[in-house]
């Protein structure tokens, strides 16, 4: 296990470094380079030249990278001239809100998708499976923003059950108004459940086809014992891995949902930043989400290893 952890963690560090290289590369991809990114679109060529001089942007690229990286590691993600605030402070305000939205949605998605996926697998190729599969596929195929707007149209405007907008203001205002979280959470959950349940269905089907399931049956285990005593834990491994890997997709869904519901999280931050060409913010979000994903998949792998002793044993895979 120790060896596994060491190996997996060093892998994660390499990936994180590569993420930083990519972000740094993006910074340099911009017309006008990092100076334009940092000073904003209103910067004149003179401003840019002065900035480059001042910040050593005329030095060799590796040196620049090192400076930038040490800056990022010490929490300096730059300043947003558009928002008039440092990127790290913006992220600090917005990140908890997105974490809440995505966290609740994903938790809910898992809580729904696991039984649904199990149900589908057990009822494979019967009416119940077909109905659920169809619903899941249709949801999966519908653009998230449309799902959100249809929900608003029906539940907020016509029936007036839930507010059409996420709570504004501080984080505490957010959690003090759980009603207003319902629709955004529901949107992400619906879109996510669709993908998750399909995956869990296959995952459980794969497990059900395993010899050990037949072996358990041969010992007189009931379906319940087989599902919960045997299959659950084995199917959980891939599901946990899926969770780790789907973080970026969930962030994408969250971005759209935040836009639809006017939810002040990092997705909205990134969107505003993109439309106002506020590059320090976009790149800040990219690096934070990237890091979160890497850490997320690391945690997922560790959890997988805890669930599945084989993984622990075969450290050094892939």
């Amino acid at each position, binding site marked *: 296990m120790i060896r596994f952890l060491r190996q997996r963690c060093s892998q994660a560090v390499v990936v994180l470094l590569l993420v930083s290289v990519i972000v740094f590369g993006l910074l340099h991809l911009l017309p006008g380079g990092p100076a334009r990114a940092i000073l904003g679109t209103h910067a004149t060529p003179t401003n840019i030249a002065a900035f480059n001089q001042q910040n050593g942007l005329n030095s060799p690229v590796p040196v620049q990278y090192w400076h930038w990286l040490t800056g990022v590691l010490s929490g300096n993600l730059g300043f947003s001239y*558009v928002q008039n*605030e440092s990127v790290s402070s913006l992220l600090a*305000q917005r990140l908890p809100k997105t974490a809440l939205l995505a966290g609740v949605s994903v938790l809910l998605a898992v809580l729904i998708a696991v039984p649904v996926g199990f149900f589908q697998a057990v009822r494979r190729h019967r009416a119940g499976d077909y109905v659920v599969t169809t619903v899941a596929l249709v949801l999966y195929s519908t653009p998230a923003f449309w799902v959100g707007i249809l929900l608003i149209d029906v539940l*907020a405007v016509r029936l007036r059950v839930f*507010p059409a907008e996420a709570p504004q203001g501080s984080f505490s205002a957010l959690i003090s108004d759980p009603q207003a979280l319902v629709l955004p959470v529901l949107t992400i959950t619906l879109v996510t459940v669709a993908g998750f349940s399909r995956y869990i269905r296959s995952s459980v089907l794969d497990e059900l086809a395993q010899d050990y399931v037949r072996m358990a049956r041969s010992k007189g285990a009931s379906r319940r014992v087989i599902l919960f005593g045997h299959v659950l834990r084995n199917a959980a491994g891939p599901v946990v891995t899926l969770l780790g890997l789907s973080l970026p997709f969930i962030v994408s869904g969250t971005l759209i949902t935040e836009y639809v519901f006017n939810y002040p999280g990092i997705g909205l931050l990134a969107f505003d930043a*993109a*439309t106002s060409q506020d590059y320090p913010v976009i790149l800040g979000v990219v690096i934070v989400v990237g890091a979160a994903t890497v850490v997320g998949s690391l945690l997922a792998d560790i959890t997988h290893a805890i669930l599945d002793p084989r993984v622990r044993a075969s450290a050094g895979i892939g």
Partner: protein
Amino acid sequence: MRHSLRLGLAAAAVATATLVATACTSSGGGTGSPGSSATGKAVSGGTATYAEPPGTTPNYIFPMLTAAYYSVANIEQFQRLSFRSLYWIGNAQGQPVVDPSMSLAALPVYSKNDSVVTITLGNYKWSDGEPVTTRDVAFWINLLKANKTSFAAYIPGEFPDNLKSYKIVNAKTIVLTLNGSYNPTWFTYDQLSQITPLPTQAWDKTSASGKAGNYDETTSGAKAVFNFLTAQSKDIATYGTNPLWKTVDGPWTLASYQSGGYAKFEANPAYAGPTRPKLKYFVEQPFTSDTAELNVLRSGNSIDYGYLPTQESSQSGVLSSQGYTTSPWLGWGTTYFLMNFNNPQTGPLIGQAYLRQAMQSLIDQNSFLAGPLKGYGSTNYGPVPVKPSNPYSDSYEAKGPWPYSPSTAVKLLKSNGWTVNPNGASTCTSPGTGAGQCGKGIAAGTKLSFTLAYASGTEFVSQEMQALKSDFSQAGIQVNLSSEPFDSIISLLTPCTSSQSSCSWQMLNYGGGWTYGVDPYPTGDQLFETGSGSNSSNYSSPQANALIQATVHGTVGLTNYENYLAQQAPVLWMPQPDYQISEISNKLQGTSPQSPIESLTPENWYFTQ
């Protein structure tokens, strides 16, 4: 999405969207002003929530702001709630004129052939109990003199460059000596209205822990104070708590603020103006999109003062049954889009007045008004709009010299050496500079084809541009559209010469025009004078320059200037959309009139039972 940005001059001048007239013919503030039909008893207290349209969120509190932050959202709808300027634009009839009762000072007195100005302050107080004095005016002037290039509204040659000296006569009277004679209207409206007295006793310092002094009296001290206040203003997270921003002379104090533009104001009990706030709180809430705002409006009552996206204006009836009143808000400005006179390929074409006039004749303003704008706007054929009602516009602009007429356009082209090729590209078949020929710099075979980049995100702008492309094809003028985010469009807006790569754009429409906020007296000295900072299309006409100078230095009216520019079409005039179609809760009263310079005065608002 309306972008009520007013960008200043320094980097990329230009202002934008909004304004004016309404299709509705009612007087003043449009239809059904809620204030006029009070339905219940006024109560004090409560929180009124105002919806900020996308892209109009405040994020800068120090009133002496740089170009990047220079916007209606920051000035008129944020800073002015707490920090009042010497002269308040917008009277009780919703006209863009000074309202002395709301101003910190009485109307100035001009003497010595309009070269000396005497200003007398009224009895206003800071929230810490100190009176607002001429020292506070001098504080602003000192800061500005030392840091003028950092102030977005600064124009070389204008204030404070045109100020020779000032003299504090007493706590209430200050005398400004100018470097020449100026049109008093212009000077009051376009120069003095920018002066915002600042609390010397609280802000004249160089560090948060330092004591306030008289640092501003030296240039280096003034720079240090400016840098300190600017740095504080960049610490957005402390807006709600920083004691600096709690010393206000306006009716509202910022109580809390979230990045992204959420602002909560608390009534300032010490406000000494004509109307004290009845509401306890005033909240500005940002929205990502028009749809998001409408969703909220449709689904409940959390917005007291919102707006209807133009394309959904048919929802007015439904909202009215939900307890909202529709009230078009007319802004003071003009709408147009730009053609680049210095573009190496198309500059010579744009330089020809007949071609600009032909294009102006192809803009079907009435269709645009009836279609994309759903009637919420008015035709606009020149730099000075007809609406809201104002003392400056001329009847010539009411119909304009170039109303929609494809046949006029075709005639203009044919009579100037072009072979018109409808649905294709017309070609120049008679080059040369003589009468009836294409004109200077236009070779035989030149085709009429332009690229037009417009700001994405506003439904009616996108509709107008698609229709315009279609209409232009009737005279064989090809327009290739591309839509880009607002900010990337305005980043191109800077005067350029044909050799610069930044001059590669041919036509640009950021979806607005000019809001007369900095310059409520609409002289055009910033827009159409050769070389002026916001003359982004690089228009240059000696005759226009002369007409503009006459409005600034003389006492001549605006008529000659505005009519000449309407006729010349240095930009393509577009119908003027209303600033917004406000939807105001029937419970919220006192909201009329809506300010022509788009400021908010929630101190006049109150809830009824």
